[in-house]
């Protein structure tokens, strides 16, 4: 139909629906991947200075000191000698193995137990709040206090745990004095202490799943369906977070091992951090710094690929 029609021109507003009133547009802001900040870059300066002074400078300095023989009063540059000496350390190989075993054990147990508990504590259980608090409480207590307490509780003959088992007629294992059990016992205490944080993260993850899925699960089946087909796949983010955090924590663990066994008996429960600490205690400051540099590299080397693997499905929106 021709645009030019005979007859009087009707006002546009009669033909077309009225245009909504809009505020006059300002100069359009550039929308890049990162949302542009309204604040100048200089606001980063205080935090930046703190970060450089407290993190970057000591890290670079320790890289330097790890290449020296250091008595805290004088340094003697010896190149990579410290690193070679560290690898010759007899406790190192078993320490590295123990560290990985410990990290995998605690991480795995925290994820499994945390997820199961979270599933259970997000049902309409009446006592769920009390239980959540009870399970979270150990995370608030000082690690040293926990270590010392459990070392006493786990004494093979006089500790409360084995005495209680004796009443039931079971001979309790020699928790901390048996070289093959020592690391495992400390790992159990670590899980007891850390599962509360895993629980909180998982609960948050489960709560963020939309109700529709839960309704569907309720219609289709019981608890198992709810867990296997709704919670497990949809709390993937929370699971990865817990795995990463507890794995990093496990690789760097020190307090609990030291207070419960001192890395003993002998070298049985030595991990990288306690090996480094023993060298620091003996006054080999350069060697201990080299050990820390190695630990730093090892943690990054393990955790960064893990992170990339977990987040490979993420896309920029």
């Amino acid at each position: 139909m021709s645009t030019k029609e005979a007859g009087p021109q009707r006002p546009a507003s009669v033909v077309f629906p009225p245009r909504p009133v809009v505020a006059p547009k300002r100069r359009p802001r550039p929308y890049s991947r990162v949302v542009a900040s309204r604040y100048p870059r200089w606001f980063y300066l205080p935090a930046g200075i703190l970060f450089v002074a407290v993190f970057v400078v000591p890290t670079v300095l320790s890289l330097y000191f790890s290449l020296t023989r250091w008595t805290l009063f004088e340094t003697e540059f010896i190149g990579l000698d410290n690193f070679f000496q560290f690898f010759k350390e007899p406790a190192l190989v078993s320490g590295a193995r123990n560290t990985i075993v410990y990290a995998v054990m605690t991480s795995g147990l925290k994820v499994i137990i945390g997820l199961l508990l979270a599933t259970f504590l997000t049902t309409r259980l009446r006592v769920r709040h009390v239980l959540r608090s009870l399970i979270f409480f150990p995370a608030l207590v000082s690690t040293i206090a926990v270590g010392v307490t459990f070392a006493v509780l786990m004494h093979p003959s006089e500790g409360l745990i084995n005495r209680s088992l004796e009443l039931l007629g079971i001979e309790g294992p020699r928790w901390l004095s048996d070289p093959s059990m020592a690391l495992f016992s400390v790992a159990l205490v670590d899980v007891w202490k850390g599962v509360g944080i895993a629980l909180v993260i998982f609960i948050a993850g489960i709560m963020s799943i939309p109700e529709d899925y839960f309704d569907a699960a309720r219609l289709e089946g019981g608890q198992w369906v709810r867990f296997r087909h709704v919670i497990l796949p949809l709390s993937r983010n929370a699971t990865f977070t817990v795995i990463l955090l507890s794995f990093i924590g496990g690789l760097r663990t020190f307090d609990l091992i030291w207070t419960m066994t001192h890395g003993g008996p002998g070298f049985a429960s030595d991990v990288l951090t306690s090996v480094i600490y023993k060298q620091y205690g003996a006054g080999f400051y350069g060697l201990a710094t080299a050990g820390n540099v190695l630990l730093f590299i090892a943690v990054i080397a393990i955790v960064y690929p893990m992170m990339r693997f977990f987040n490979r499905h993420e896309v920029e929106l």
Partner: protein
Amino acid sequence: MTTARTQLGALALVSILAVTACSGGLGGSTSAPSAAASAAESTAPSAEPSAAAAEPVTLIVNTPTNDTIVVRAKALTEAYTAKHPDVTFELTTRPDGQDGETILKTQLASGDIGDLFWYNAGSLLQALNPAQTMLPVTGSPWLSQIQESYLPTVTVGGEVYGAPNEPAMGGGILYNKKIYADLGLQVPKTWAEFVANNEKIKAAKITPVGATFAGDSSWTAQIMVLADYCNVEQAVPGFAEKYTNNQAHYADTPTAAAGFQHLQDGFDKGWWQKDAGATSFDDGLNGLAEGKWAHYPMLTFALGTIAERYPDKIDDIGFFGIPGDDAAKNCATIWMPSAYYIAKNSAHPDVANDFLGFISSVEGTEVLSKALAPSGPYVTKDSKLPDTVMSAVQDIQPYLDSGLSVPALEFLSPVKGALLPDITVSVGSGQVSAAEAAKQADQDVEKQAKQLGLPGW
């Protein structure tokens, strides 16, 4: 929407934070200002003995929490205050064993250990870097009252640093005389006899040897190796010097490696009690006195503690040196007494120096004897042991009289590995073989030698 009130509240909080951040840290080191002052004034300590300080002075003395050491520290400081009422003492403690060593080294490096501190003499002293962390006492008039054989153990780089605070001690096997009498056993003069005795004790359902491998008591496991040194020196004279020059090692010297083999034997033959890995040093002493085990490898300084806890049983404890293979040459290894040292930045170096003179004097040894029954002869000239000395101490005397006693390796060589406690616990709990442990001990020593910059490594 922030109201004016909220903004005001936020401003108040921030300013409080800023003010607290500016004020000094908690428990700021009171030694900081005195460090500057005493650094300016501290030269060689003054020659006036027992100079009565005009104003009241408090000396801070740091020791491990070991019962024996604390009791002696209290006795000595109280006696000194009785003589010099304007000098009082504040006793601080650090943990026993490796943990305490770490703390001590750190505090020395940062300069806030106080005025005086307890530490071993001998090779371990070098690791504390005395030139940087302690005040020398060379030239003090009271040095002449100490036996000459002791002075090299507190001397580093030509300067003397410490004064002895306890009797010398024997290192070997403490044994329960009652069990020996009940089973009709004789004190073993060779290792084979010792093994045979243990078999009989085991048959009588008593633990032959107490082992204390708990985390903080791991240092006790080294005694089996270290107290065997008199046998090593007899078999390989001059071992200490060759060892310092990297010419002789544990692994290639059979008598030296024997100590580790003894630990392995103990584990293989089941001499230890069931929970050795969880038994602490204190439990070890108590068990010996109570007759739970027949033997306990230890230094005789511990006798003082047993005497305090079991005054009626102390004479049931005896001592013999770790036997070698030759009955005629049965010897004992002697440990020189530990010492007190003056911190470099002590606020009262003169008073501290005078205190050291007091503790190493004959009067000091009398105070010590009253506090704890002496566990060996003193290294102060003209000192006397009381008549009621413990029976175990009487057992040490024949070794000293016959000349069949040798100072421990750490007093003849500056090299001592730091991981020896862990290595010996490893062997004793059956995790590594004796041969492997000897190799590890040599590697451990290598680190210390390199750190000290010794030639030949």
